[in-house]
């Protein structure tokens, strides 16, 4: 704003007027300005600074040395046996304390859907005595062990709130009996073993299958038995032949040989033949349906002998050998005498 001042005043007084101030006072001393130190780094500081800027040195100082020191301190501290034992004991104690809190304890076990035998086995399988901490019960391992029981199809294990170990068991249902060289077993619908049986009479209501490898084809056997409808009263059982195909065994020693493939159709065909011509009521020992294009029938001994008598041929005995007429007469006579 100096430009606005009257010009003459400046000229007349020759510069700025002195400020009005008390006589003895002196101007305040100028503030002691801090003389800035020469900021140049010393040669050593400069070299150290440049060394610290090398990436490897930097990494060493920032990561390597702290890590080394931490490892060193930890190592020295842990070198004492007592301290190590104290440390592990302390950690174990804390872990134990947490794991055995009331919230984590399992007090009882409930089992649903299991028969008494399975129930007993399952209770015996739990590795720890209840009550125990739920951290000690490994449910996955326990489930695998339970599933190894033949009678159990599926098991649902869980720890419910309130400290209950719940097991929901689905048992296998026996649908067929399997007689083989080593005994009799009960099988479910997939052919898996359920239990062993001491005799046929234990479960007389179940159909029976026999032969090696019959358990692996149990599903097919069940289908065949279902399809056997009209001849079911006469059905004795099914026999696996050569681990390959089925024989349907009826009473009176009759036997229907089914092919390895399309056994069901072959059986239905046999039933149809029976229904049309009541074939099975006749004296027929074997109906061989193994070749689909050419069913073969073996007659019973009576029927064969009737044909042979009509033809004037000697009869056959039970072994299929023709009977000498003299011997036949003798025996006839003997039988008459006896009669």
């Amino acid at each position: 704003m100096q430009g606005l001042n009257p010009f003459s005043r400046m000229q007349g007084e020759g510069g700025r007027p002195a400020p009005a101030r008390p006589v003895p006072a002196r101007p305040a001393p100028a503030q002691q300005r801090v003389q800035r130190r020469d900021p140049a780094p010393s040669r050593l500081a400069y070299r150290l600074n440049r060394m610290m800027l090398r990436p490897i040195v930097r990494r060493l100082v920032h990561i390597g040395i702290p890590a080394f020191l931490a490892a060193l301190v930890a190592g020295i501290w842990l070198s004492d046996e007592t301290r190590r034992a104290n440390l592990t004991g302390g950690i174990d104690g804390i872990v134990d304390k947490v794991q055995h809190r009331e919230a984590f304890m399992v007090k009882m076990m409930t089992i649903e859907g299991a028969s008494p035998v399975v129930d007993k086995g399952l209770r015996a399988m739990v590795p720890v005595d209840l009550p125990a901490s739920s951290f000690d019960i490994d449910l996955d391992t326990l489930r695998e062990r339970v599933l190894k029981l033949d009678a159990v199809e599926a098991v649902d294990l869980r720890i419910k709130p309130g400290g209950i170990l719940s097991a929901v068991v689905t048992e296998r249902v026996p649908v067929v009996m399997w007689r083989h060289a080593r005994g009799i077993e009960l099988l479910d619908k997939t052919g898996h073993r359920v239990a062993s049986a001491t005799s046929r009479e234990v479960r007389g209501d179940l159909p029976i299958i026999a032969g090696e490898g019959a358990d692996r084809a149990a599903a097919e056997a069940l289908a065949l038995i279902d399809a056997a409808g009209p001849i079911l009263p006469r059905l004795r059982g099914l026999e696996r032949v050569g681990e390959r195909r089925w024989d349907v065994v009826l009473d009176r020693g009759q036997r229907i040989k089914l092919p390895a493939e399309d056994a069901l159709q072959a059986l239905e065909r046999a039933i149809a033949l029976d229904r049309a011509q009541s074939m099975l009521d006749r004296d027929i020992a074997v109906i061989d349906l193994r070749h689909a294009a050419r069913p073969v029938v073996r007659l019973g001994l009576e029927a064969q002998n009737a044909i042979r008598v009509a033809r004037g041929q000697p009869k056959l005995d039970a072994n299929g050998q023709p009977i000498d007429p003299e011997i036949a007469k003798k025996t006839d006579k003997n039988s008459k005498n006896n009669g």
Partner: protein
Amino acid sequence: MRDLCQGQRAMRSMRRQAMQRGVIAVLDIGTSKIACLVLQFDGPGQFRETDGVGPMAGQSNFRVIGTAHTRSRGMRYGEIETMAETERAIRTVIQSAQKVAGVRVDHVIACISGARPASYGLAGEISLSAGKVTEQCVARVLGACDVPDFGRGREVLHAQPVNFAIDGRSGLSDPRDQSGNKLACDMHVLTIDGDAAGNLVHCIRRCDMELAGVASASYASGLAALVEDEQELGAACIDLGGGTTGVSVFIRKHMIFADAVRFGGELITQDIAKGLRVSHAVAERLKTLHGGLEATGRDDREMIELGGETGDWDTDRRAVSRADLIGIMRPRVEEILEKVGEILDAAGFDFMPSRQIVLTGGGSQIPGLDVLASRMLGQSVRIGRPLRIQGLPHNATAPSFSSAIGLALLTAHPQDEWWDFDMPTEHYPARSLRRAYRWFRNNW
């Protein structure tokens, strides 16, 4: 000139090493301040056109990652006077630039402003036996330039081929593969005082840095402050520095002349300090805050408090008008510009097609300088600020940084120098090679 060539070649290979590493520092050692820029070279192809970064005059392949400047110590007239002090200043500036950049820098390119530069125009001519110019022919014609006596203890700082002519067709910038019978060349050689250059090299070595090149500060500031058209059509760059005032003349993108006056801004400060009887720091503050060259009537009424710390009330409470200050500064600036004008006359600047004058450097910030300079030197005068380069902070875009920025540009795109061409074959020790070859053939 052969041993000099070796030294310059060693610096070129050092520069190539630095480029491979990707980080290099440029150091502008001036009389009043030392500036250091740390450049990072990313290689070409870092930016695409779609990123919005165009070619940017071919300098988008590097960026500044660290900047620092400090008060210069132990320097006078652009030369090292006290080596330990200068070394400390260089240490300071390099350490702070490294701190900003966060990387270690091992290679440095420096520029020297003083050391009594002298430029020579050399001419050479050879006849072409093959009828065609090859790479070796260029080296040979450069070697055939008749070298004048530079004087005792002079070192060649720049030796740049400026012009080639084949059979009277002059003005070729690249004569290779052209056919003709005679090849002539003009070369511009800039020599400086060898001891000053040696001091600089020694000083940088003591800071554990490898010197990857030395350039003239007036050349570097010309590169930064002149735009491309001015370099092409002919212009002079006047770098008003602290201790020296550098002059460089460019035409057709080549420097054809460089010189330096041993007057600068420090001298103006000294005049103010003497004339007003104030300390150097106060004089510097008066010059930068209130200085000027054209006095008006209003400046008589504008009183400037001098201040001071002598403790004497009358001395500390003095005030001068701005006109007084201008009266002290103006004769000195006129003297500097007169000296510059003499140099330009000696360089034949009047005969150039375009007589553009660009003022740069810290001294060019004095208000009214462009008016005074156009009155004294010629009509077309402008104040030039340095080119903007990528990553440069705002406080380093002032005209006083033009030589540092020009040095960065020169680092990115070095000018062809005489030592960049292969040594002429007749000087190669072919006999010993042939003997070694024969020995190999006989023994294996």
